[in-house]
């Protein structure tokens, strides 16, 4: 019995050794000796399948910046998380949410993101599309706000152009989804120059709203008033992003607009 097991082990290990030597030789050959062969990449063409596995449930795609991401909310939910909670209470429908928000995104980056295949595929299957964008175009990523009129006008022109392209792009991908664009609030309303900053944010929101009015099934959701009176209570310690309470306010507002 013991003799047998040694012979058996010996046999198997010699086989293993042989296999590994072959594999190793082939690896060397593959990695070092056949440069320049056009790869087999060509043969395996991506299979185009439009099947969405989200059938039978409502699909929400959230795009945008740190507000979509939920920065400032200690539970990490953000308004999207609370929105799901609210909608879950409201209806029995199964909700699938895809949150593609990235901290610090500006409108131009969102436009670039829309070129990605998988993002496009998800937008195609969406029932609702939520967008928060523009905050980083206007406020330099949460640091300060440049009060120079010219610069703001420039930033706004760029932003509106990008937003227009974003909305068009989304519309080409998905004809029926309803788009919600969440407007800006003024995080600096308690600070000096509040009159000036408020005016800038209002103008910004007004122009955004005007742009959305030209689009079909696109809704501008104001948040300015939510934060107007007690901004301190609803902001995170960075005095810029909403805290959990602030996000809940936004979520309530959006949830009341979503019906099915």
């Amino acid at each position, binding site marked *: 019995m013991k003799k047998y097991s040694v012979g058996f082990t010996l046999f198997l*290990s010699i086989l293993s050794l042989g296999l*590994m030597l072959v*594999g190793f030789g082939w690896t060397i050959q593959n990695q*070092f000796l056949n440069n320049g062969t056009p790869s087999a990449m060509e043969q395996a063409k991506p299979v185009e399948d439009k099947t969405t596995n989200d059938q039978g449930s409502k699909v929400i795609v959230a795009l945008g910046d740190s507000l979509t*991401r939920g920065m400032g909310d200690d539970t990490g939910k953000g308004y999207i998380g609370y929105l799901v909670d609210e909608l879950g209470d409201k209806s029995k429908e199964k909700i699938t949410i895809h949150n593609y928000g990235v901290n610090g995104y500006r409108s131009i980056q969102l436009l670039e993101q829309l070129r990605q295949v998988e993002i496009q595929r998800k937008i195609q299957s969406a029932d609702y599309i939520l967008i928060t964008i523009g905050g980083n175009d206007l406020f330099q990523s949460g640091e300060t706000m440049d009060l120079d009129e010219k610069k703001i006008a420039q930033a706004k022109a760029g932003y509106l152009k990008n937003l227009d392209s974003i909305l068009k792009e989304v519309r080409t991908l998905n004809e029926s989804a309803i788009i919600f664009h969440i407007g800006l609030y003024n995080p600096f309303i308690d600070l000096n120059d509040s009159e000036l900053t408020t005016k800038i944010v209002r103008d910004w929101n007004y122009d955004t709203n005007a742009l959305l009015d030209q689009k079909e099934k696109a809704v501008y959701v104001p948040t300015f008033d939510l934060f107007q009176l007690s901004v301190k209570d609803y902001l995170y310690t960075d005095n810029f992003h909403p805290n959990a309470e602030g996000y809940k306010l936004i979520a309530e507002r959006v949830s009341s607009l979503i019906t099915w």
Partner: protein
Amino acid sequence: MISLVRNEMLKIVRKKRILIVAGIIAVLVALFTYSQYRDLERRLERFGDVDWRTTVQQQIIDMQNRLTSSGISDEWKSELQLTIQQQQYYLDNNVNPMEPGAPSFARMFAEHSINLLLPLMIMVVAADIVSAERTAGTVKLLLTRPVKRWKILMSKYLALILSVSIIVILFGVLSYLISGFVFGYLGWSAPVITGFSVAGNELNTNAVQMIPQWQYLLMEFSLVWFVALIVGTITFMLSVLIRNTPAGMGVMLAALISGAILSSMVASWESAKYLFMINLNLTGYLSGQAPPIEGMTLGFSLIVLAVWGLAALVVSFAVFIRQDIY
């Protein structure tokens, strides 16, 4: 010579070392399989489907967000950027980076064990192959036979090579069989992308090739085998040099673990790339991970490892032939 090797194999089999190693691997594979399974379930809950594209896209977004946080190191940042580009490449080409199934599990498991777990298993077999005979005194019986000393050591080394090979194969077979129980046994021909190269922060996709998974597995396991062989050889040398088996094991353990720790923090210490333990992660080159130190390539690591292995072998023989045995 053949009967000498057979004799040495007999000793290894009698000590049941290979069985112990197989047992450890089996238990670990079961553990990892379970955790992977839980992960799959969680994803199903979170996204409502297990479409890999949803998961990969979400991973990209998560990594992009991690990139924006201020507290992360430059190395980590560039690693994240590379991974993002790579994942995006998978998405753009509609190739699942982790096709579900036992072959993918074996692939992933080998990638994760190449620089620590598997070398440890090899150590179990290799550490006392010479030193145990000295502690037990049986080496005298061996050396009084009319056989040249180098032949005796050679037969031990050949037996070690054979055990290393069978352990690597067992490793693959066990992870395939056990994980297949949960994930299914299919997926051998799923396409895998390899040939990414890294230039600074950019992922170079010029030399990328798409190969069926079984080919990838063969390549991967042969690299795993090479690493195991070198680690085995170095342990073998220590076994010749240090009479005390636990001491020899300790040295090797320290080297391996320091390698695992160093790999993540040596980016700025360039000459560390000549240490063997920094070069163990050969499969990383296949899958396109950023090397621990910029400029390291598969060829470089193979040569460094081969030099270490040869040197260890030369030292082992030189010492064993001249050593006084008492």
